């Protein structure tokens, strides 16, 4: 895939070229949205809005990392979604049973390659991590999602977040520190190496 040619075609109004770019980035965009928002439905809305917005403003893309540019769009869409959520009645993060209780192992997290026990542990760990991510301020969460979950470098994160590089370093360090403190509350779910290290530092 010649990304530059596709971007150029999309800038000339070629929707098919832009859809090829969407197919390439949609997993990363959705994953980022779901980690920032903590909700799959909201993440889908944000991802779709981000792509629509990206197509409409693709002429403003002046080169550089397209991934960082598209991540900036999805980050803005997530912020919009969070603002919208504040105006609406909140819904629980976990799906509920017919009795109104939260499902421990929701179907939407199921991985058919795992045993039920492994699946349950993975679900709980993922829930624990998502819970700790949700506890972070939105700006910190965005930086840690882009850097540690999406694996973007500092320059890309700065471009996506539209904040200076120094701020990114500071936010990332603070976010990691807070996450570490939060994850201590879920030590039984964490890998053994993490538990031992935690006990040593305590």
């Amino acid at each position, binding site marked *: 895939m010649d990304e530059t040619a596709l971007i150029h075609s999309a800038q000339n109004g070629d929707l098919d070229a832009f*859809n090829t770019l969407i197919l390439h980035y949609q997993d990363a965009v959705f994953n980022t949205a779901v980690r920032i928002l903590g909700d799959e439905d909201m993440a889908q809305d944000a991802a779709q809005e981000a792509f629509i917005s990206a*197509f*409409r403003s693709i002429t403003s893309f002046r080169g550089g990392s397209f991934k960082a540019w598209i991540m900036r769009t999805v980050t803005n869409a997530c912020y919009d979604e969070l603002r919208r959520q504040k105006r609406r009645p909140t819904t629980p993060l976990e799906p509920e049973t017919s009795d109104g209780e939260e499902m421990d192992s929701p179907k939407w997290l199921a991985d058919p390659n795992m045993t039920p026990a492994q699946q349950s542990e993975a679900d709980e760990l993922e829930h624990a991590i998502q819970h700790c991510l949700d506890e972070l301020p939105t700006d910190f969460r965005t930086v840690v999602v882009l*850097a540690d*979950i999406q694996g973007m470098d500092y320059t890309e994160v700065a471009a996506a977040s539209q904040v200076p590089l120094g701020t990114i370093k*500071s936010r990332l*360090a603070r976010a990691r520190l807070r996450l570490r403190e939060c994850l201590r509350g879920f030590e039984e779910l964490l890998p053994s190496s993490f538990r031992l290290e935690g006990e040593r530092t305590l």
Partner: protein
Amino acid sequence: MKNFREIELLSVYLDGQLNESESKRLETRLASDLELASVLNDLRLTRGILRKLPARKAPRNFTLTRKMAGLKPPLPRSYSFFRFSTAVATILLMFTFAANSVARLSFGFGAAAPAAGPAFGMGGGGCDEPCGEALQAAATEAPAATEAPAIEAPPADMLPAPTTDGTLRESEPSPDAVQTPKEPAVESELQNQAPVEKEAVIPVMWQVILLVVIGSSGLTMWLIQRSASRKWQ
């Protein structure tokens, strides 16, 4: 717990973003400072856990349709011609209405002054439709006119012989005697008013033609848009 500046330094070092000299200086400190090394390990493990999070795949494709992207079908060149002609015809139509209105207003002011003179003096002018009724009413008020001869009564010898019928004949005004002085005034008023109503700078026919042009151009544009969007889909 180390101060935040040191933790930030460790976080940056962990990501390999420190320059060579800073990295060496920090590594020297890490070798001697166990607490600092322990914090670095904590940060490394936290980052490791985040990286182990399963990547969530998109549950569906987010590709855009033309409608979602807000794209409009390409229109033929003739569309812009019809759009231009519609705009020009609309402007011209508005101009004709404006010109005719201005003309009516100016003629109306010009005609009002001469009409007011005789109307004031004759007790029935200066009005449009009720004029006829007023004049008719004036015509039936004949006894007022018959009183005048009574004041300037002619000598008795010139009067006809007094008979019972005679007084009635004298008091009855003849239709000719009453209406004859009024008729020229009515006609002159109607003649004065008629040109004011008929005056129009641009004939109505032109306005009708412009309306037809606007309507047909608009309809053609709609048809072009419809066929273009059908072909596009």
